[in-house]
């Protein structure tokens, strides 16, 4: 059982190398498993943050190591909030993040372009902003498990 009564926070910083991203994933999963999230939600929130960090490395920094990706995690009484920032190329804002394809049409199955879709499906709030030389992706997710009432598998 875990009731979050006050806000606590931690910043994760990695060098822009895909080799480091699993450390962010492990961290976010562990923190979300501690928080009152269902097990599958904790897992998917972890995946969403991994997708966002992958994107910063691949797209904002063009797979160049030597740059920093920062992930601020805020554990609030009602949910968790992530602020992912990079100082690379800003994202060209697209409209909606749909994932439409025919599962039978082998040749046209998607091999990419699923990251932003996953993020938007999983998180309750997603916002991307550019501040001068810094890009900031903010994502939030409300707890979906009341340990006073539910049996939270994540616990």
């Amino acid at each position, binding site marked *: 059982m875990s009731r979050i009564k006050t806000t606590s926070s931690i910043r994760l910083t990695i060098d822009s190398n895909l080799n480091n991203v699993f450390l962010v*994933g492990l961290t976010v999963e562990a923190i979300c498993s501690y928080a009152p999230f269902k097990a599958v939600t904790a*897992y998917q929130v972890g995946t969403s943050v991994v997708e966002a960090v992958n994107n910063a490395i691949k797209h904002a920094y063009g797979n160049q190591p030597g740059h920093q990706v920062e992930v601020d995690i805020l554990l609030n009484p009602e949910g968790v909030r992530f602020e992912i920032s990079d100082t690379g190329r800003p994202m060209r804002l697209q409209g909606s993040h749909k994932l439409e394809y025919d599962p039978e049409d082998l040749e046209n199955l998607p*091999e*990419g372009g699923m*990251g932003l879709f996953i993020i938007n499906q999983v998180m309750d709030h997603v916002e991307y902003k550019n501040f001068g030389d810094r890009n900031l992706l903010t994502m939030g997710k409300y707890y979906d498990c009341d340990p006073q009432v539910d049996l939270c598998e994540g616990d």
Partner: protein
Amino acid sequence: MQLKEDKIGGILVLKPLDKRFDAHSAVDFKARMADFVSSGHTVIILDLSEVDFIDSSGLGAIVSALKTIGRNGDLVLCGIKETVMSLFRLTRMDRVFRIFTDQGEATAALSS
């Protein structure tokens, strides 16, 4: 990415031994799969029972392998954990692949 290889009849069974199938391991996985296919393995079971985590790059690499094999072969999956399966469902990849509980079921289906 570490891959355990087994042959059951004409079927190649591959089991990734890394817990995390992510953007980092996906690059290597894609290349390895292309090698297997070009050396004549076109009926493959991918056993994901050791995998705790997959991201969209991992999913993409498996789709890429499916395309490489094409219509003249088969790539089926088995041993997917519940959390990993939730990402297959979210992206509807559960409708793209034939998914079995374990190697036994997958082998039976491919041999019949």
